[in-house]
């Protein structure tokens, strides 16, 4: 069970209609790869975020399938088109079944 999992996102507060904005996301998570061993030589079981999805007003921006080769605290930077005012929803899916969600509003002027 991953502890202290905190999602963080950076989205501009406002944009003009149809503008492409840059989004940065990070979630603090150990991303235990399942390759490491503890001091007794036992394999530490895999525990990672295996999927990340960003949507805007229900439309997909990016959907990422994640493998153990992604670093601790998975970070993604990508671009999204903003056609109207609305809400970005960010969802991370954990191996242990947990789902972490974060939202960010953006206003089109």
């Amino acid at each position, binding site marked *: 069970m991953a502890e202290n999992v905190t999602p963080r996102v950076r989205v501009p507060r406002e944009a003009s209609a149809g503008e*492409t*904005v*840059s989004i940065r996301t990070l979630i603090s998570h150990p991303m235990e*790869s399942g*390759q*490491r*061993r503890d001091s007794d030589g036992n394999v530490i079981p895999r525990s990672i975020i295996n999927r990340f999805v960003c*949507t*805007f007003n229900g*439309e*997909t*921006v*990016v*959907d*990422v*399938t*994640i*493998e*153990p*080769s*992604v*670093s*601790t605290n*998975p*970070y*993604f*930077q*990508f*671009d*999204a*088109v*903003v*056609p109207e005012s609305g809400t970005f929803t960010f969802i991370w899916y954990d191996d242990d079944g947990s789902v972490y969600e974060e939202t960010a509003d953006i206003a089109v002027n």
Partner: protein
Amino acid sequence: MTFSRRQFVGTALTAAVALAVGPGIARAELVDDAINAFTGGADMETGGITLIAPEIAENGNTVPIEVDAPGAESIIIFAAGNPNPSVATFNFGALAGSAAVSTRIRLAGEQEVIAIARMPDGTFKMARQNVRVTIGGCGG
């Protein structure tokens, strides 16, 4: 069963070669299988996709990479020398502003990072870059 000296040397040599080469071949197959699973064995063009990764990464636990493949609907990243070569697959949706993404990955040692983009017309584009790693990032 008795071994002659010649037989013994021969067997030992074969074993040594198998040990030295085995993991390398197994890994190359893993990567080829993973690539084929994504492309279905289609030919790949170079160009039209940019992969930016450092030539030398001090810490294999967190190597920053950037991929940009204008117009791509999906990008997959492989680390050819990792125990599990798949790294991540990015599927871009209707509101993606560009087919570009930056992230941080783990590399077990010096190896090639491969990015393959699937275009909407069903063609594939590939970029590779070799990265040297000072401290590997897969524990142990």
